[in-house]
């Protein structure tokens, strides 16, 4: 039991001590950041110099980035606004200029790819974007053509200025879908009236004058972009699945479409497959190649050639998973990826103009056992010294992984772009080492005879000694090597708990359905597991059923994946340390799931019981062994849960009955016409509160209201008018349904961020009256006496707690809010605020204290209360991630470590950032620069001095005796 020490009188002094900033030499020591770009939509290799090592990527997350192909690191990255406003419609690359069309044709931008600087930006006229293409003139690419729904415009590549803008004829009926140019002074806009005819308009590059307009009958065609490509000297090639034939049309001549039935080429389409055409135009100032790919089935491609209006088959690739063209110099090659066996694919290059296989171009792509299938192929071809073609390849998989390889199959790097969209995460303690575990196991087992116990003890002591010797040897060996050479590789074997439990396993669940296990110390991905068939709108809930503390039982995590539309759920049970799927078969869930609940009760194998409540209010338990069911029956009357239905504004409490059905206990209904429930937030289960009260200035104690079942319900008014809008905060006891506190923040609206912990609730809202962000803090106190100090029961707390509240102005908007968490809850709390700028602010809870006095008195000074100031300060030393900003921070996860002073923090969004925070400084750790030499030398010095002086004193005494 610790002694309570009350410090008084230097509250102002204390204020200077919140600095949590790192020193320069500590940068990167306890923290790391990983930057991502998102799922790739367009990727192009920089080809303008032979030795270039850049790949440019435009992603679904509205990020435009350049990746170094040697290392896989981001060279530079531009993060645009989220949503359709920053959506990248098109990426074109010419020389060292990358041209992007952004936000459904709102902006046209040109970037310098060497440094990532903006060359120019043009705001385009309104109109939905259809297509963009380079336009060459006199053998050089000089313009960019942008096709919109009703207009086409031509811009200079050098400065973005508009050369001309022309309205498209008959744009009401004709859907223009493609733009084509081959450098002969004409730009073609290709439009279509579905199932009727193709409409072709040719513009003069010089002044935008319409040279000709052609209408061609095509009653079978419904989508130009998906079915047609331009090949050869301006020949439009379309494929039709209904008649199973190719159609060609020469754009330069006013002719009819020529039908070429696939039967005449002796080709057959897989049933139910929509054939796909792929062509290539290596240089925008020249016509496309006359060779093209035709995909006839999921694993069947053909390389065809258009020659004298006839289609010739150059080569038939079966099986072939993916195909791609690549050009270097004057040579164009076709790369074909084919499945070799279940774990590997081969990539082989073929000459595009002849279909001949190129020698020594085989590359083996090994698929990860729990990864996704390859989805797209990006080839970087280059000419070797002997003029043969070499290549590197970037493979994009279903799980958003990018793998960059060179011949003959060496993986140069992989990027896990799925990590740009982390949905939820947990941190799990690492297991003990084998020897530690053995020792634990020895004490865990039942006694079986004296002799064997002694033997077992001796053997385990021996193994411990051996491990210790090995450790010493390693230390000695490593100490001789320079520091940079000491490898700290993370492998399965080296994964073991450190003495302060600072290294943990981060389990991250991403929206794509890929799970990751990441070592929190280094950020190394230890394992990954891709779950197939995860619906796009799935909601995930990750629960730790068994921690690593129960050796020899493996730790166990359960992921509940729920389809938001149907409510149907699937359980995935796995080992969080190794990522392996558990051999335990989870129950199938035929009914939609309403609520899931992890109970503190355990089965005989120490797995916590997970309760799932379906829409019939029936409860199923996992694991559902006899032992568990018996425990549940015994405890049924004290297992309560709540359901919230925002669509009806209904909150209801239920109790478990012994036959695993439920009964309704209470009901609270918030009329949906007035307000809608935004979210319901309880407290974290693993939270410890160390002190039950606060000592006041007069040495009396104000006891906290610590109700573990308290729920904070946040509502927002349906009326959006700034004068009448409000944000409502209800505090409801989750067991009895009693409304403890009911308040509204008038003239306020969301987004609301809320943290609920101990006896306080902090929330942030937007004040529409003052047009600013405001923080509000609620604290609940029982009063000067505890009602029942031994145990808390929601059923026996008749008195309503006192609620204190204060609000503050916060100078910036916020993205996310979380509170620090430590092992025993002794350390003072901080709030971690993720700001839209990417900074993470560690705000002391002390500043959010409703007892901050307006007028400073002797007693408030005694309590170290900061005088009230309406504006919350932001100090730059409170930013825990110094310059390591986390782009689009969406969530912050906190976990306690083995040290009471230390809290582990992971911020995720587009980037992932891991660090440690010390809200009360490192009171239980010696400083980094602690002078061990000095203290040990002083100790030894004193020791020897005593020895010598003792000896001298003895001699002196002896001499005196002789005298």
């Amino acid at each position, binding site marked *: 039991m*610790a002694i309570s*020490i009350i410090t008084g009188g230097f509250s102002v*002094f204390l204020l200077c*001590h919140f600095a949590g900033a790192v020193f320069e030499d500590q940068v990167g020591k306890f923290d790391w950041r990983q930057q991502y770009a998102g799922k790739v939509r367009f990727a192009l290799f920089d080809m303008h110099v032979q030795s270039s090592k850049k790949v440019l990527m435009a992603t679904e997350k509205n990020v435009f980035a350049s990746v170094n192909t040697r290392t896989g690191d981001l060279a530079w990255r531009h993060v645009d606004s989220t949503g359709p406003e920053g959506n990248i419609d098109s990426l074109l690359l010419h020389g060292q200029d990358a041209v992007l069309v952004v936000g459904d044709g709102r902006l046209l931008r040109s970037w310098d790819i060497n440094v990532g600087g903006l060359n120019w930006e043009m705001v385009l006229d309104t109109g939905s974007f259809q297509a963009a293409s380079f336009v060459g003139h006199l053998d050089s690419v000089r313009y960019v053509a942008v096709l919109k729904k009703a207009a086409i415009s031509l811009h200079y590549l050098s400065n973005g200025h508009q050369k001309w803008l022309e309205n498209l004829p008959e744009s009401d009926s004709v859907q223009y879908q493609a733009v084509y140019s081959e450098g002969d002074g004409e730009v073609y806009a290709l439009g279509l009236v579905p199932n009727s005819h193709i409409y072709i308009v040719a513009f003069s590059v010089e002044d935008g004058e319409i040279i000709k307009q052609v209408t061609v009958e095509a009653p079978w065609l419904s989508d130009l972009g998906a079915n047609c490509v331009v090949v050869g000297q301006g020949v439009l090639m379309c494929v039709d699945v209904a008649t199973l034939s190719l159609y060609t049309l020469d754009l330069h001549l006013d002719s009819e479409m020529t039908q070429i039935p696939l039967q005449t080429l002796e080709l057959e389409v897989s049933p139910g497959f929509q054939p796909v055409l792929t062509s290539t135009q290596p240089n925008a100032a020249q016509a496309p190649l006359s060779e093209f790919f035709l995909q006839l089935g999921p694993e069947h491609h053909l390389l065809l050639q258009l020659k004298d209006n006839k289609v010739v088959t150059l080569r038939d690739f079966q099986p072939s998973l993916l195909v791609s063209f690549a050009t270097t110099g004057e040579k164009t090659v076709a790369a074909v990826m084919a499945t070799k066996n279940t774990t590997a694919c081969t990539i082989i290059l073929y000459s595009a103009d002849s279909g001949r296989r190129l020698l020594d171009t085989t590359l083996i792509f090994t698929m990860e056992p729990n990864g996704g299938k390859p989805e797209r192929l990006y080839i970087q071809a280059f000419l070797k010294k002997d003029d043969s073609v070499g290549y590197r390849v970037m493979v994009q998989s279903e799980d958003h992984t990018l793998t960059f390889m060179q011949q003959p199959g060496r993986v140069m790097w992989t990027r896990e772009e799925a990590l740009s969209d982390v949905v939820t995460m947990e941190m799990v303690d690492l297991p003990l080492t084998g020897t530690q575990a053995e020792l634990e196991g020895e004490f865990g087992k039942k006694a079986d005879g004296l002799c064997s116990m002694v033997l077992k003890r001796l053997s385990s002591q021996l193994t411990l000694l051996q491990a210790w010797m090995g450790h010493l040897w390693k230390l000695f060996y490593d100490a001789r090597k320079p520091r940079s050479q000491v490898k700290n590789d993370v492998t399965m074997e080296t994964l073991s708990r450190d003495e302060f439990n600072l290294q943990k396993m981060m389990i991250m669940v991403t929206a794509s359905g890929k799970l990751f296990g990441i070592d929190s110390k280094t950020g190394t991905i230890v394992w990954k597991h891709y779950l197939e068939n995860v619906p796009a709108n799935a909601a995930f809930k990750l629960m730790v059923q068994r921690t690593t503390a129960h050796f020899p039982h493996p730790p166990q995590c359960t992921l509940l994946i729920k389809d938001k539309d149907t409510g149907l759920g699937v359980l995935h049970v796995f080992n969080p340390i190794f990522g392996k799927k558990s051999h335990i078969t989870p129950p199938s869930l035929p009914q939609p799931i309403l609520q899931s609940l992890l109970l503190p009760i355990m089965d005989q194998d120490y797995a916590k019981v997970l309760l799932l409540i379906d829409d019939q209010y029936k409860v199923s338990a996992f694991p559902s062994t006899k032992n568990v069911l018996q425990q549940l029956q015994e405890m049924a*009357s*004290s297992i309560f849960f709540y359901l919230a239905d925002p669509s009806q504004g209904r909150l209801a409490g239920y109790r478990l009955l012994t036959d695993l059905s439920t009964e309704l*206990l*209470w*009901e609270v*209904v*918030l*009329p949906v016409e007035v307000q809608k429930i935004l979210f319901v937030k309880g407290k974290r289960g693993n939270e410890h509160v160390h*002190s*039950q009260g606060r*000592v006041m200035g*007069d040495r*009396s104690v104000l006891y906290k209201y610590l109700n573990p*079942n308290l729920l904070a319900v946040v509502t927002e*008014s349906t009326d959006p008018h700034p004068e009448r809008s409000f944000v*409502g905060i209800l505090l*409801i006891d989750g*067991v*009895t*349904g*009693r*409304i403890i*506190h009911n*308040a*509204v*923040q008038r003239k306020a609206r969301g987004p609301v961020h809320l943290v609920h912990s101990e006896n306080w609730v902090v929330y942030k809202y937007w*004040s529409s*009256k003052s047009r600013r962000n405001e923080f509000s803090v*609620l604290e609940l106190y029982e009063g000067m006496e505890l009602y029942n100090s*031994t145990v*808390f029961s*929601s*059923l*026996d*707390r*008749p008195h309503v707690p*006192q*609620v*204190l*509240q*204060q*609000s503050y102005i916060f100078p910036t908007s916020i993205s996310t809010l979380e509170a620090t968490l430590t092992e025993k809850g*002794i350390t003072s709390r901080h709030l971690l605020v993720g700001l839209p700028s990417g900074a993470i602010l560690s705000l002391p809870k002390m500043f959010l204290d*409703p*007892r*901050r006095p*307006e*007028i400073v*008195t002797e*007693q*408030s000074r005694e309590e*170290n*209360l900061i005088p*009230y100031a*309406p504006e919350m300060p932001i100090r730059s030393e409170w930013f825990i991630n110094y310059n390591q900003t986390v782009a689009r921070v969406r969530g912050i996860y906190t976990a306690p470590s083995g040290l009471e002073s230390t809290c582990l923090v992971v911020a995720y969004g587009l980037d992932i950032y891991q660090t440690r925070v010390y809200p*009360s400084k490192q009171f239980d750790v010696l400083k980094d620069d602690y002078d061990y030499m000095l203290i040990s030398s002083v100790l030894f010095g004193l020791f020897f001095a005593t020895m010598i002086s003792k000896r001298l004193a003895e001699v002196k005494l002896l001499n005196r005796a002789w005298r």
Partner: protein
Amino acid sequence: MACSLPTIISTYCSVVLLLCTHLALCNNGRKVGDAVDTEFSGFSVPLEHSFEVDDVTTFRVRGALVLKPGRDPAVSLSQTQLSEEDRTKLKEVAAVDGLYRVRVPRVSLQADRMTERQAEGYLTAFVRACAMVESHLSDVITLTTDVSGYLIGVSIVTLPGACRGSEVEDEVDLEAFNTTLSVMAPGSAPGPETALFIERLNVEMEKKLKNPQEQKSFFAKYWMYIVPLVLFLMMSGAQDQSGGGASGGAGNGGLTASGCDIPLGHRRGKVTEASSLIFPFPDSSSSR
């Protein structure tokens, strides 16, 4: 403890949250039905309760809530005493640790027309039947409304709230309800207190302006101490030049030593700040 809690809170805290609690009169009368809607121009809704040994809910009328709509909603309750049969049943339910439930229909205290007042469904709450018995039917019922006056929740607690298994004489103790009824309308959460803060700043500024003593510089205030000190130092320095230099060096050494001490002091300060409130706290064993 000299001060009572409310005084302390009002001293320390800017905002004491005021729940607009309207305590209402409770008619614990033995008769129901009369005097319901005559003096109030309100309307009445039934307050129903249910307590069954087999825990099948069958609600019966316990009393009538008389609601007086308007800007300042008032509520009163008139209820009968428990019948002999109900008393024994309640005791039986208490013996098997059953539940005593209450429910009220969803109504609005604000709407003008009768048709708009009532919505579908009920609001329910419960308390352990044994608590009801042992508190001798003294309960506190709170009706919670939202901003527009709709009832959103009802809660019932007994005073005292615990079940200790004490013996209860049903004739005397379980006859009449001793109910405290209140309506909780949402309070307004406070916004940032800028006006008061600015006022305080202004007062302080004025004080400074009024009191020119404060504005004097450090030297102007303490010249009478500094001048003799400087004189003394000069005198002593003139006497012994070399000795002064040596002592200055020693002084420097002393300073650096104390400078080393400061971080340690900081750390101590921090520990105390962290553990300034250390109390034994049992794991709050929840009833969940």
